[in-house]
């Protein structure tokens, strides 16, 4: 019964329309499916971005919206680039970025290379080492303030145990010279497992036969390491660095909870500094220009980096 209805419906449909619907199922449907994502990203990311760009050329202050907004041209940009305080936060960010990536890559790769095979309790171990990155950075910052306390903190206690120094003789988040390292340590603790797991995936993707062939050619272990292991893992490692680099450039909640940017402004990374300019000093236009400068910097560095990554992949 239903068969005849279907048949009749099929016959009733003009062939041209049927072809049109068929045509829809390929190209047009593909676009219809992508459209919502593109539209939403435009609405929530690009539209505010354009708004921010517009604000960056004005002296708008969000807490005095009634005041007349004046167009100031590139003055905001000029002032930011000549402000020595901002260069200090840039330096703090560079310090944080460089050392976190350095330690995470070094330790992550070294550990992955050492471990590079299944062992007893491999799955349980993997679950345990991913625990830190599952935690909220805000919470991590919060309980590390406790671990960093002089005298009673676990970190100080461990250092004292290892070096024999007095645990109350130093304060990781209280001293100007140590505070920049305190945030590096926490971030390294949190994200080294990520780099290590990605390296492990890279190492395990190298087929044994390549090493066996190298063995036949009498390549030394040292040479095998540099000509097989490193180049094969490099694309994985570079991807991990890209993710961590972008995230750490934007680093905010962990450091706010841990040090609040202090002591002084030694750990005031750019995002924290930007938040202060925008919501404590209420210089909205100025802060907008600042945000645009940061965006252009990250975007530029990331583009260059992705080009390099693609080259490495092609090899």
């Amino acid at each position, binding site marked *: 019964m239903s068969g005849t209805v279907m048949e009749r419906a099929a016959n009733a449909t003009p062939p041209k329309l049927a072809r049109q619907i068929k045509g829809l199922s*390929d190209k047009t449907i*593909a676009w219809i*499916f*992508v459209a919502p*994502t*593109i539209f*939403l*990203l435009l609405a*929530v990311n690009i*539209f*505010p971005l354009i*708004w*921010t760009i517009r*604000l960056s050329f004005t002296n708008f202050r*969000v807490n005095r919206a009634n005041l007349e907004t004046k167009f100031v041209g590139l003055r905001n940009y000029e002032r930011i680039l000549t402000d020595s305080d901002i260069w200090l936060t840039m330096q703090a960010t560079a310090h944080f970025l460089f050392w976190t990536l350095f330690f995470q890559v070094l330790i992550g790769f070294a550990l992955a290379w*050492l*471990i590079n095979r299944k062992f*007893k309790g491999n*799955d349980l*171990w*993997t*679950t345990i*080492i991913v*625990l830190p990155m*599952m*935690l*909220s*950075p*805000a*919470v991590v910052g*919060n*309980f590390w303030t*406790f*671990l960093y*306390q002089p005298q*009673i903190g676990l970190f100080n*206690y461990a250092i004292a145990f290892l070096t024999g120094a007095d645990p109350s003789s130093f304060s990781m988040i209280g001293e100007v010279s140590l505070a920049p390292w305190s945030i590096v340590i926490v971030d390294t603790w949190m994200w080294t497992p990520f780099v290590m*797991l*990605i390296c492990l*995936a*890279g190492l395990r993707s190298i087929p044994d036969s390549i090493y066996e062939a190298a063995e036949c050619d009498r390549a030394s272990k040292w040479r095998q390491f540099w000509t097989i292991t490193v180049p094969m893992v490099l694309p994985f490692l570079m991807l991990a660095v890209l993710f961590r680099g*972008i995230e750490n*450039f*934007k680093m*905010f*909640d962990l450091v706010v*909870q841990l040090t609040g940017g202090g002591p002084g402004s030694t750990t005031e990374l*750019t*995002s924290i500094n*930007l938040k202060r300019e*925008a*919501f404590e000093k209420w210089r*909205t236009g100025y*802060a*907008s220009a600042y*945000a645009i400068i*940061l*965006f252009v910097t990250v*975007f530029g560095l*990331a583009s260059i980096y992705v080009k390099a990554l693609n080259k490495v992949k092609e090899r």
Partner: protein
Amino acid sequence: MARAVNNKRRAVVTLIAWAVGIAIFFPILYTVLTSFKTEAEAVASPPSFLFFDWTLENYAEVQERSNYFLHFLNSVVISLGSTVLGLIIAVPAAWSMAFFPKKRTKDILMWMLSTKMLPPVGVLVPIYLLFRDASLLDTRTGLVIVLTMINLPIIVWMIFTYFKEIPGEILEAARMDGANLWDEVVYVLTPMAIPGIASTLLLNIILAWNEAFWTLNLTAAKAAPLTAFIASYSSPEGLFYAKLSAASTMAIAPILILGWFSQKQLVRGLTFGAVK
């Protein structure tokens, strides 16, 4: 002989691996332990590890002081809501980009990812003003919207990579057998993509659960999730580290439990599909 060397090597590897594992795990364990101590014991030096008077008073006090369950519920609603909404939008997009690639598909993907490069503070002012005018400030709906948008590029990108791993020939074969679009998606694609979608789902729940910047800036009391709750414990006046530890434990426990029961998918998600 060779076997003896091999065994020795394996023992060394196991030893190193577990030493690292314990070192990584210890700060978390110690925080959880401290949450069961009294305030006096929490600041004792040298610290005690197991032999102290276990107490639940910190938990009771934290709940009383800052209504943990309300924030917990907010976190659940916001992270689940934004994840489900994100998947509904992202799956069709990823599907069409993976199976009907265009010349510009790669550029579109890169562009989507590049929206993650802007420091969130940079667009806070416009979003804040928009939310104020739409009276979305301090509402769960508002946070679901923001977090969906924030994480959408990552969801699209991850599902795209998983879809890419599915050979196109299988879909062609299904089509040859007379499957239409609907059959193709429901009976062929979905079963094959489930592990990938599950990993993406978990990763996104965690990202949304942990997101602190937007939740702190767009909520006050009503819709604040656990990340905002924890921020109220940020500057301990006097000594209440046991309570700080209890609050931290309460904020991370749900995620740790979720992670424990979904290890494989979770590891895959957290490493963006690199670890299978």
